[in-house]
């Protein structure tokens, strides 16, 4: 009891001297609250999110203007019998085109990318290393250059495939295959050879090892890369703009751009953009929850899951 009292009184005295005699000026005080940084962060959030919020708000405008707000309605989503996203055939088909492109690209690019990652991980040579470099290169090459190159491929080289859905899918798959290839490879390196050796040691054939050990270990990475590919295709503009041919295979991003740029914008476009935004959000949330579910019990917290799903995109 006495010792406790003694200790507290000493520390009290110490605190008094520290606070009293050597009070620091606010900008010299290393423990001060970072008001400046915090304020700047808020400012940045406001600056970047406010325009999006306003654009979304105008998608609910009951009037025809993208600039003067006249009250809430679902008019531009489905209320308007001619110009709403739901009733305008061009806008409606663009939503489905985007979904189709995302789904096909994901279904084709992810298995190819995973196979590539597995192959490169086992095949150690100069050739393998240079293939790997090509994969990373596609992160560096400007998308426009790639898109134009693909455009010439389909208009001059392989004219058997004409511009349109198939060309778009081929272009997008080529562009996006790096995601699964790189992410799954990183996961393979992280996993190491132990589990495979353990499985072989316990009598599993190579095929059984792949199915019973490697696939469960790789699922989170495969899933994360699928999410990235899917959401990447929703956002994609350059490749699809160059490789689409008519309204039936033009996705949302291109419609929004060309209509707005052509001066024919209206709240229906805001509605279409909102649909795109929601789609991206849903995919990201599904990705986050799915990744957490798959890696449960493996001591991966939400932060890490988020970093894998979203962080790799930056």
């Amino acid at each position, binding site marked *: 009891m006495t010792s406790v009292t003694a200790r507290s009184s000493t520390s009290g005295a110490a605190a008094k001297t520290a606070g009293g005699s050597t009070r620091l000026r606010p900008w010299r005080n290393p423990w001060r609250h970072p008001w400046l940084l915090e304020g700047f962060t808020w400012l940045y959030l406001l600056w970047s999110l406010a325009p999006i919020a306003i654009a979304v708000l105008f998608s609910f405008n009951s009037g025809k203007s993208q600039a003067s707000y006249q009250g809430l309605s679902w008019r531009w989503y489905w209320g308007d019998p001619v110009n709403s996203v739901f009733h305008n055939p061009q806008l409606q088909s663009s939503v489905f085109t985007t979904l189709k492109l995302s789904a096909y690209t994901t279904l084709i690019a992810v298995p190819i990318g995973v196979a590539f990652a597995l192959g490169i991980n086992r095949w150690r040579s100069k050739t393998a290393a240079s293939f790997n470099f090509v994969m990373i290169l596609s992160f560096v090459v400007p998308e426009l250059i790639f898109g134009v190159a693909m455009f010439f491929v389909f208009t001059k080289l392989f004219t058997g495939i004409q511009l349109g859905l198939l060309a778009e899918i081929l272009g997008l798959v080529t562009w996006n295959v790096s995601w699964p290839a790189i992410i799954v490879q990183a996961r393979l390196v992280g996993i190491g050879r*132990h*589990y495979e050796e353990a499985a072989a*040691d*316990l*009598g*599993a*054939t190579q095929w059984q090892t792949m199915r019973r050990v490697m696939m*469960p270990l790789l699922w989170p990475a495969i899933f994360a890369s699928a999410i990235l590919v899917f959401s990447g295709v929703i956002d994609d503009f350059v490749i699809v703009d160059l490789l689409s041919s008519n309204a039936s295979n033009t996705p949302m991003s291109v419609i929004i751009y060309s209509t707005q740029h052509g001066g024919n914008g209206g709240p229906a476009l805001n509605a279409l953009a909102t649909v795109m935004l929601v789609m991206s959000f849903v995919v990201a949330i599904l990705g986050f929850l799915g990744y957490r579910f798959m890696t449960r*019990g*493996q001591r991966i917290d939400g932060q890490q899951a988020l970093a894998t799903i979203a962080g790799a995109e930056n």
Partner: protein
Amino acid sequence: MPGGRIELVSLTKRFAEVAVDDIDLQIASGEFFSLLGPSGCGKTTTLRLIAGFEQPTAGKILLDGTDVSAVPPHKRNVNTVFQSYALFPFLNVFDNVAFGLRSRKLPSSELSSRVCSALDLVKLKSFEKRRPGQLSGGQQQRVALARALVLQPSVLLLDEPLGALDAKLRRSLKVELKALQEQVGITFLYVTHDQEEALTMSDRLAVMRDGKIVQIGSPTEVYEEPSDTYVADFLGVSNLMEVDITERGPGGQCQAKLGDCVLTVDHGGQEAPDRSHAVIRPERVKIEEFGSTGPNRVPAMVERLVYLGSSTQVFLRLAAGTDLQAVLQNDGSQTAWSQGTPVHAFLAPDALRVLAGGGEVAEQGDDLPIDIAAPGALQAG
């Protein structure tokens, strides 16, 4: 289950350099055999060759008389406990242990009864629903053991299985592991760099260096009769003194000159070259008052005392310039020597051995962290 005889015939594995160099070794059925050596000596590569994770460059691996060098790992009747355990993180304890049985298409009742008895064996029955991530290191290690033993292999390979555990757990698991081996009666091939583990558990052990086996024998043989300075040093006997043999008597006895003193040495006299190393274990060095007379007494100075609880380590500097360690049991009977005291060290003839092989001295981490010979080393740090 009988079987589990391993024979290595001029086994060689070359990566960029030679990792395993022309090893010949026979391990009997049901033996607890250890491969002991520092990292990079080829002990783990040897184990991986037997498991089938690596292909030998040359030589043969015979398992119960059959050459298995070309048999893929999943078809060899050996199982491994990995240093990292390699438990499948997405399966619970039960499914981890059942993994090997599931490829064998057993009826489910037999499968679960075998898994349960394996978990009983390692005392983890109540943990079957947990995932590896929810277990402590020691528990994970037991799951790894159960997972390997449930397949009833003829040989169990253990790659530093206690390496990742803390000292106290290691001590108790050592005893359990040995008991387990006696209970299941299969061959254990144990790879370790810890001489204490190898000495406590093994029936026989091999000390390795640079891909070669330096000495094979029972723990007593290897510890008491090290073939060269490398083995002596690696097994924790670091009291090596350079001597000149002046006279050889019958039965290994000889006279060895250490500086100005002549010591009578009881062991190793026949094979040792004229210029060789004499070795004595720290627990056999006796410290006496300075001036005590008699044979085999050398003047020394107490350099440093290290209190270890049950014993005290005394670092001596002999007049001949050699450093010597003594371990005194703290049983109340010893005089408390203080630093800087001149004393006489009594090196009993029957505790001294001259070594046949020279060899280099192994790197050991458990010596004093500072150079005790340098005065003021502590203050300078």
